[in-house]
């Protein structure tokens, strides 16, 4: 039985089309439709109910060395109030989850994927060992909204005393929004400037209503999961279960920049170092359809009648206005301009390897 978020009644009132996503009933779209919602976020601003996302809090004198061991990224030089993307890997280099780590004055705060909350909590706790650190799953009491788009700052500034023009890309601050104590991160997963907000669950409708009202004159609209997917796809932001998983390592997925081999040992290091030295067996590339058709997750990539790879995400990309895919192919077929085929309903259709990202993020740095 899927769970309702605190904003379920709001989504129903807005005629959101509700689906079960990772055990949560969430709007896949509102009546305007996913393509218009996508454009709204690129051109104005969108508000996303993403309470399905989970959060962990790590504290204690050994919190830093513990996280250095569990995460692939080097967080030792992170400043207080900084946020950073990282992967959590298995010993074999496969991915447990991809996360955002926030360094706060008294703790590390980690945003994790909805489907991985229980797995991550167990994984982190299992690896505490002799480290003096605690891992707390605060997903239940923490609500999460994302406010994304070029108008996001103007909208949020109406509701918070925090100086948002000084809160730069991947910085976070603990302040108030509409009077509610909120962790404001200049983060997001759409390729646009914007914020992610963490605050007490019981304040969800208060913040949602406040932001919707403040944003209405600036073109703010609620955004569903379908547009969330196309928005993260164009700037090539990976989705767990598609571009990365227990059987896909970060180097294959082009996420080597989030793996630090220099910081000392971490879980998965030796396996990943081997991949780095030998070169990954497959590479994530961008594909553009030459022949018309919609590539979709799971479709085979073929060359000369032989299956050589698979689409991880594919769709009609609204801002690029093209039929595009991310796909794994052997390194020999990964060069820009290489022609392959996407197998759509049993028929190979021509596609070409193109540069990624499909959309250059519009972050304010």
């Amino acid at each position: 039985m899927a769970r309702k978020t605190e904003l379920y009644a709001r989504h129903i009132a807005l005629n959101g089309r509700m689906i079960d996503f990772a055990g949560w009933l969430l709007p896949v779209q509102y009546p305007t439709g996913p393509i218009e919602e996508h454009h709204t976020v690129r051109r104005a601003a969108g508000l996303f109910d993403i309470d399905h996302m989970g959060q962990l809090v790590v504290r204690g004198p050994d919190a830093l060395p513990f996280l250095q061991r569990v995460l692939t990224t080097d967080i030792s030089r992170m400043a207080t109030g900084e946020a950073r993307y990282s992967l959590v890997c298995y010993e074999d280099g496969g991915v447990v989850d991809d996360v955002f780590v926030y360094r706060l004055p008294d703790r590390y705060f980690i945003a994790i994927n909805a489907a991985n909350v229980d797995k991550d909590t167990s994984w982190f706790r299992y690896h505490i060992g002799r480290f003096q650190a605690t891992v707390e799953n605060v997903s239940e009491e923490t609500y999460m909204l994302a406010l994304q788009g070029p108008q996001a700052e103007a909208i949020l500034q109406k509701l918070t005393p925090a100086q948002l023009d000084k809160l730069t890309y991947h910085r976070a601050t603990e302040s108030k929004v509409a009077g509610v104590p909120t962790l404001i991160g200049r983060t997001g997963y759409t390729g646009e400037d914007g914020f992610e907000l963490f605050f007490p669950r019981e304040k969800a409708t208060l913040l949602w209503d406040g932001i919707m009202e403040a944003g209405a004159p600036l073109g703010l609209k609620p955004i569903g999961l379908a547009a969330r997917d196309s928005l993260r796809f164009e700037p090539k932001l990976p989705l767990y279960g598609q571009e990365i998983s227990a059987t896909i390592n970060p180097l294959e997925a082009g996420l080597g920049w989030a793996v630090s081999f220099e910081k000392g040992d971490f879980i998965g290091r030796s396996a990943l170092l081997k991949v780095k030295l030998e070169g990954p067996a497959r590479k994530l590339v961008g594909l553009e359809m030459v022949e018309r058709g919609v590539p979709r997750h799971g479709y085979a990539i073929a060359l000369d009648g032989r299956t050589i790879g698979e689409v991880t995400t594919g769709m009609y990309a609204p801002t690029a206005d093209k039929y595009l895919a991310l796909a794994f192919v052997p390194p020999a077929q990964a060069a820009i301009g290489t022609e392959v085929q996407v197998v759509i309903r049993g028929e190979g259709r021509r596609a070409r390897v193109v540069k990624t990202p499909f959309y250059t993020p519009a972050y304010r740095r």
Partner: protein
Amino acid sequence: MKVDKASRYTRTHEWVRLEGEEAVSGITDYAQEQLSDIVYVELPAVGEHFGKGEVYGVVESVKAASDNYMPVAGTITAVNEGLADEPQLVNTDPYGAGWMIRFKPDDPAEIDQLMDAASYEEFVSSLEGAH
């Protein structure tokens, strides 16, 4: 949900109407609304023959691909080329600019055996009630 009084309807949510010797067909307003934003339409070649209920094409929305079924048997005489660049016409004008195929029916009388607009509306509300 809009219906076109001049059309007949299938249980798979196609509309079809006779225009002289030829029939025109597409998907209904209910179907386009269920599918949501349509991003691609695949249509048959002119001259192809399809039996009643056979798959003649595919319509793809943001969410998924779904088949289009021939409302009655016939031979394709034209397809809506405009949908290649503007598949969203199926969303905005399903009974007009969003048409998909024109065809010569084997037996035009077969069309009269399909649901009329009122019966189709009743059929859709029975589906809605089942939710």
